[in-house]
């Protein structure tokens, strides 16, 4: 067991004591919120006035996360299928392919990303209309 006396190695860690005086790095989450980065891929939004129900998003989704379902809301007159996408967040991996292929650019990813629930069934998500 070899060891030698290392003065600087012994003393230099003491510098950390200065951290006592400094402001903590912590983001105290519920009170302080960090701004989401530009282009953050959060939850889906679908602007119904633009959506044409083309199901391109459903076709391109490799996780089979998107179902086109009948909607009873007010939809775009060009939406001949009368279906809008519903995302299964138990499948979605936020790859954003669906938004890339969306012809009218109605399907988008929002900055909101908080979703907590007790029940797996809550994960069938209807994109917000905005």
């Amino acid at each position, binding site marked *: 067991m070899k*060891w030698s006396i290392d003065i600087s190695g012994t003393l230099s860690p003491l510098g950390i004591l200065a951290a006592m005086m400094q402001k903590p*790095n912590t983001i105290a989450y519920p009170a302080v919120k960090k701004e989401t980065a530009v282009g953050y891929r959060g939850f889906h939004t679908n602007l119904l006035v633009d959506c044409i129900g083309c199901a391109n998003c459903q076709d391109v989704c490799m996780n089979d996360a998107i179902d086109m379902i009948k909607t009873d809301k007010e939809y775009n007159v060009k939406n001949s299928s009368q279906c809008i996408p519903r995302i299964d967040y138990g499948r979605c991996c936020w790859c954003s392919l669906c938004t890339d292929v969306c012809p009218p650019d109605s399907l988008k990813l929002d900055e909101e990303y908080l979703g907590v629930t007790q029940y797996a069934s809550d994960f069938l998500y209807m994109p917000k209309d905005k």
Partner: protein
Amino acid sequence: MIILDLALMLITAYFVGFIYYGLYRNITARFQRRIGPTIFQSFYDSIKFFGKKEAISHGWMFYLGPIIMATGAIMTLFFIPFFYQSESFSGLSGYGNLFLVLYLMLLGPLGNAMGVGVGGNPFGVMGVTRGLTRLFALELPFYIAVVAIMSISQSADIATIAGSQTTINAFAHPLLFIAALFSFVAMMGQSPFDVVGAPVEVYSGPASEFSGKFLSLLMSQSAIFSFAKLVLMVNLFLGGADGFFELLWKTFVLFLFVIAFGAIYGRFKTPQSVDFLIKVPTVIAIVGLIFATAWGN
């Protein structure tokens, strides 16, 4: 009357110990530039574990292991007087002495080692092995310092030692104090001598198999035992205390030093810590002993 005294000592040590541990977590968090938990966090943890609905047990010896450890800690506390003059808060110290306290401090770890051993968890046994290997090394400088202090005060009675210091021993015999401090850091399980618990390497060490109320009992005894050790150090080296305020600030200063020390340094391997402890602090202690006795005569 003595029962009441003992109960008060126990309650004081329990709450002060937990608040110190809360402060410990808070201050360590500040070193790491975090906010840290509330100072009652350790207390919450302890109560929560008492309230767990179940705890695994591996038979009666496993059940008794933490109980023996807690008994050892509480007995240590009872034989250390809080104040050197007062009748109250002196516990059973009139019936014991420093040698007894030194040995009582070892009783708990051995009892717990039985429980860990019977639990059959190899990680626990690994922790115990490391603990016992480190134990004798950390005791060596502490024993030399304590023996020197006993010889200087010509008594093995803790209250007498605490009361007989005109200049406090930490300043009168700084070498002894420094040597004892190294041991004390190790006794409190702080870095760089904290290889026993080492959750990253050995799965929590001795506590691997303890859950629920057993773990909680271990946490409680740790708080009580830490306070007892702090009071012992204050009595031996910092001139003892004459009132609660003095006791609290002295123990807290010592505690602050220990946690600051512990927060800074990395961890020694077991042979490294043994090697360090039987070289550096031991040599300091022996030099201190020679100085102390030479001046004493």
